[in-house]
């Protein structure tokens, strides 16, 4: 069964450093998403991406965040200057039609120290 692949599975970074989280969505999917889950809390929407541009973003997705689809397969989330409160599990998801079905990756656990 097709999968959404995320790398790395775990990343530790120092506060103030830039990080890039990588995702390979399912090949025929057109809609891409990032969510995050702070430990012990609910999964929160960050941003959606379609046709090479951001479709929607939440209040969490401020100027320190950016997304990019640098080539035909990767979808990245960049955090420019990490803060302690950015420590969370980050999930990438993709969807063929943008509704009715979302496939999630296994996540990247980001730890900011």
């Amino acid at each position, binding site marked *: 069964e097709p999968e959404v692949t*995320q790398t790395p599975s775990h990343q530790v970074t120092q506060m103030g450093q830039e990080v890039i989280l990588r995702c390979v969505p399912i090949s025929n999917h057109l*809609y891409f*998403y990032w*969510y995050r889950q702070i430990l012990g*809390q*609910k*999964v*929160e*929407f960050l941003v*959606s991406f*379609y046709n090479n541009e951001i*479709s*929607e973003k*939440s209040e969490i997705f401020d100027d320190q965040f950016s997304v990019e689809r640098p080539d035909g397969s990767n979808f990245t989330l960049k955090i420019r200057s990490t803060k302690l409160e950015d420590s969370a599990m980050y*999930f990438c998801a993709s969807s063929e*039609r*943008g*509704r*009715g*079905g*979302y*496939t*999630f*990756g*296994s*996540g990247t656990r980001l730890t900011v120290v």
Partner: protein
Amino acid sequence: AQSVTQLDSQVPVFEEAPVELRCNYSSSVSVYLFWYVQYPNQGLQLLLKYLSGSTLVKGINGFEAEFNKSQTSFHLRKPSVHISDTAEYFCAVSSPSRNTPLVFGKGTRLSVIA
């Protein structure tokens, strides 16, 4: 705006007993409803979804859920749980509009006791 309430943060249950995990939603528009499961240190796996049609939806691993529009609920049930069902379960809602993000509940931790 849409929201999801999962009333129970933790549900302990003995092995082979039935379980119901409750989910209520709030939405001013039509809804699509989902249940996801998260096993320890793993990602989110889709258990089942309601898009339209029959209000009783069957999913993987013997789970089912019933969409009740009048009560704005989408409770998840399993008639007999196994130790391997121990996990976090998330209810989520979106609308039929294209590219609408999922809104998740806070999750219910199901602990199956031998």
